[in-house]
């Protein structure tokens, strides 16, 4: 395995911690990182009661994703990929089982602790972008920083991030004035805003053409390779999954290969 050494101090020197603000998430080499399980999932189930039916989406998932790994989750529609990702991010609550991030059971966290965890350690990218339509591109990127209480320099940082994802000059545009690819890039910039150690992306290229999709993927991979962020990506695309360190396949709510 290639050497993957990004000293924490260097990244901190830029004002952006490597794996988040919490030193517990930091590791020195890719190998070292891969030996630590950042995300642990134990016997996870999720069912939805629609009133007339009960749908079992996840039927007992066990999974470990080490720090710094790029894992691709694949599977047919309805296999539970997005639900699994949402549970990893604490965006949903499981019917049973546990999700542990760096050894911490997120099911035991209070709403405020969960919010803090989501803000500082998880960057989530939705297939449908979910930008706030009443905010400009810049304000959308600025939002996580404001929520985390970071004062000063936010606007400069937001513009720098927008430049990095290739939508410079569109900072004062509202989502409705941006194309799908541009909206997804803004969503990526927003996800990168606080340098989260975990990036979770739910079919981020699903609504985009091949070229734009590729560009979006490159941005995500750069976060994984250059900044050591753990990347979990839900996708249907084989080529995309081929770039991953690991491929996890779901079918009918169960992991069939990993």
């Amino acid at each position, binding site marked *: 395995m290639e050497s993957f050494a990004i000293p924490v101090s260097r990244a901190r020197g830029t004002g952006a911690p490597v794996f988040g603000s919490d030193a517990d998430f930091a590791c020195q080499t890719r190998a070292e990182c891969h030996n630590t399980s950042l995300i642990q999932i134990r016997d996870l189930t999720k069912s939805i009661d629609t009133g007339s039916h009960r749908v079992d989406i996840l039927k007992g998932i066990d999974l470990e994703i080490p720090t710094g790994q790029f894992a691709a989750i694949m599977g047919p529609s309805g296999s539970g990929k997005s639900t699994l990702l949402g549970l990893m*991010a604490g965006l949903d609550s499981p019917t049973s089982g546990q999700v542990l991030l760096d050894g911490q059971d997120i099911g035991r966290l209070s709403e405020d602790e969960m919010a803090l965890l989501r803000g500082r350690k998880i960057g989530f990218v939705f297939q449908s972008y979910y930008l706030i339509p009443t905010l400009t591109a810049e304000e959308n990127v600025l939002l996580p920083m404001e929520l985390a209480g970071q004062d000063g320099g936010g606007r400069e940082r937001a513009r720098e991030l927008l430049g990095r994802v290739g939508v410079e000059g569109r900072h004062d545009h509202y989502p409705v004035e941006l194309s799908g690819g541009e909206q997804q890039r803004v969503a990526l910039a927003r996800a990168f805003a606080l340098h989260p150690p975990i990036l979770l992306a739910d079919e981020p290229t699903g609504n985009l053409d091949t070229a734009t999709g590729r560009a979006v993927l490159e941005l995500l991979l750069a976060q994984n390779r250059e900044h050591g962020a753990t990347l979990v990506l839900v996708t249907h695309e084989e080529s995309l999954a081929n770039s991953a360190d690991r491929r996890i396949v779901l079918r009918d709510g169960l992991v069939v290969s990993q």
Partner: protein
Amino acid sequence: MSAARVVASEFTRRLSGDMRQWIAADVAVTLRQPPSEEQRGEIDDLARQGIQETESLETYTMASSDQAADPVLISIKSVDPRRYPWYGRVELDPALPLGEALQPDTAVVSRTLAERLSVVPGNRILIDGVDFRVAALIAGEPDRFAAAPNAYPRVMLSGDAFDRSQIARQGNSISWRLLFRIGAGHDTTGLKARFQQVFPDAQVVDYRDRGDPRAAAALNAAVTYLDMAAWNALVLGSLGVAMVIYLHIEQRLDTVAVMKVLGGRWSQILVVYLLEIGGLSLAGCAIGAVLAIPLERIFLLLSRGQSLFPVAIEWRWSQAGEAVGLGMLASLMATAMPLAAVRAAPPLLLLRRHVQRPAGRWRIGLLSLLGLVVLAGWMVHSWKAGAAYLFGKAAGALILLAAGSGLVRVMRRAARYWKIQGPMNLGRPGLHGETRFLALAVGIMGVTAAWLAPAAVIHAIEQSLPLPGADLFVFGFGPDQKGPLIDLLRRNPDVKQPVELLPLIVLRLAKVAGVPAPASAPERWAATCSSAAPSAPLSAGRWWQPGAAAPEAVMSESLAAMLGVKVGQTVEFLSSGRALPARIVGLRRMDAIEEQRGGLVFPCTAFAGLSVSYGAGISVRNGRADAVRRAISGSFPSIAVISRRELAAAIESVASDAIWSLREITLLILIAGTGILILMVLAEEKTRTREIAILKALGARPSQVRNGMLAEFAFLGALAGSSGGVMGSLFASLLLSVIFRKLAPAWDARVLLGATALGVATGVAAGWASILRTVRQKPFTVLRNE
């Protein structure tokens, strides 16, 4: 808004249609002296023809009790409980038949008097020094506002009890009201003419007219006010409905777009929405109309019998149908704008949730406005009044709209330098900052104006109290008592000299320039006199000359205009059975209240030989008002003495009885406005729900989301509440200045604070209701449900 319409219609119906209850008879004849033998003979003759009569005496005097230190000026009425009232019912608490309650040694008293004298049924009070037991409290009296001295706490006695009190022998000013029940088969018009012939000095009113055009004008003004208030609720409702529908359609844009993509014609889409909105409106209006009854009952309970109409609303299909119809019409008119907005938008734009404003929006807006003018005109029975009221409101709304737009611009700019969440959200496109501000501010403007108007009426009356500077008023005494009373006051060291007298006579108009008075002319006039020509400026002519050969008088400008009287013409009046011709030598601009007190000013020599009653204003040394009052009451127990403060309180008390009813409508407007605002915010819930879910996914704590949103709504509420309060105050001031023909500022800092607090409370309540559920949910659950 349907409930407001039903209540207003019922009030209007009673105000304009139930005149029999208002005068407790078919025909009421009011005399200033007891009927003569000849007149009694006529009454007996009418009785033989089946026309029933009962007599009611009304006057004022003083009452006291062992439990209260000071005596209280009261309005007193004697009735024959076997016959009175011919129409309506006297409601007592405890509920007793009037005949049982009124015995020779008992009285029934108003709740106000019971409170002032600290008595309850069973206790004893002294009326003019004579002992009576309080049998019950008066909860409702049908012809209360038809009586002459109606401003003071009320006492009702039987004829025997009245005789026992000896009030009649004290020389007080007494009104004799002869109440007739005509029965079927008699010609009311012919009978009224006969009454006018038999009682030439009297005021004759029948149930079909209001006798005095000034009273008719006051009633018409009240009816118009009620109709306008209901229309106000309707406009508020329409505004809310338009907002709700706009937001509703905005949230259904995907569906509309898909329908368009699949080849759905606009008419098909329109039918779907019109059916949906029509159905919802119908259900809402019907529920509102039905709710009017329990609302009215609750209100009656709260008003503790002080409401103008002590009877609960009866269900009327026609009334409910009218309310539902109006509500439906207003709702459907309000849907024109949002539906037109969606019509012009291509499906692709709709899918991106971007509705362009339609090119012809001004045309649609104008049509909707015209529709509302037509509705207002129809509802207030006057196109002119409807249009004036509407444009007054529209002007206020335009100012508020400009303020709202300014606010949004400021917020949009401020967002560059301040936090994204919170009040800054008002500047965000798509969050309808202007519309939310406008809806809330217009609602609060209506509520403030409706709330302030009655209070400002009281204030205007208080400001116009006679004899400025007086601490005590003594009134209703005749020429016999004038000398001894003045003498007493002159000897009292606490009284500042000189004591100012206000002589008053009641006149009946007979001829103007030799021609019989027009039917539209007021029948009864109050006139006062002055020994020397006052120095007050006149708008035309001059004050009278001392020693003029024929009596001269100065008339109010508006009365002269009503009668077509010009300076130099002679007007003939009747007073105390005598003709009193007067040459009008000057016209004076009087406000409405001054005019009511005395639209004519004579030299006092003209009053010689007439039945004059006097009032006097007494200035006393600091803190000696009660002592002087006791001195007067001790020597003249039947002469009414009241302090300026008590007089103001009495005016307020009678005005507030009427105001209770008006405030009920105000309350309904308030409920309508608040409900609609909450609905509007709830309709926005979906937009905000997605926003909240995204914020939470980005790491926002529930408290951060909650505080940000509540700050936004509180800020909006404070700005809209204060702006609406200011505009409402201006609107009420304008309205009252027109009514009173003088500047009548309706301005109260407490009401402005209240309006701001109402805005904040409404905004926060609505905001809280819209986010409560979402804040608790997991982001994924919310987004999945989308």
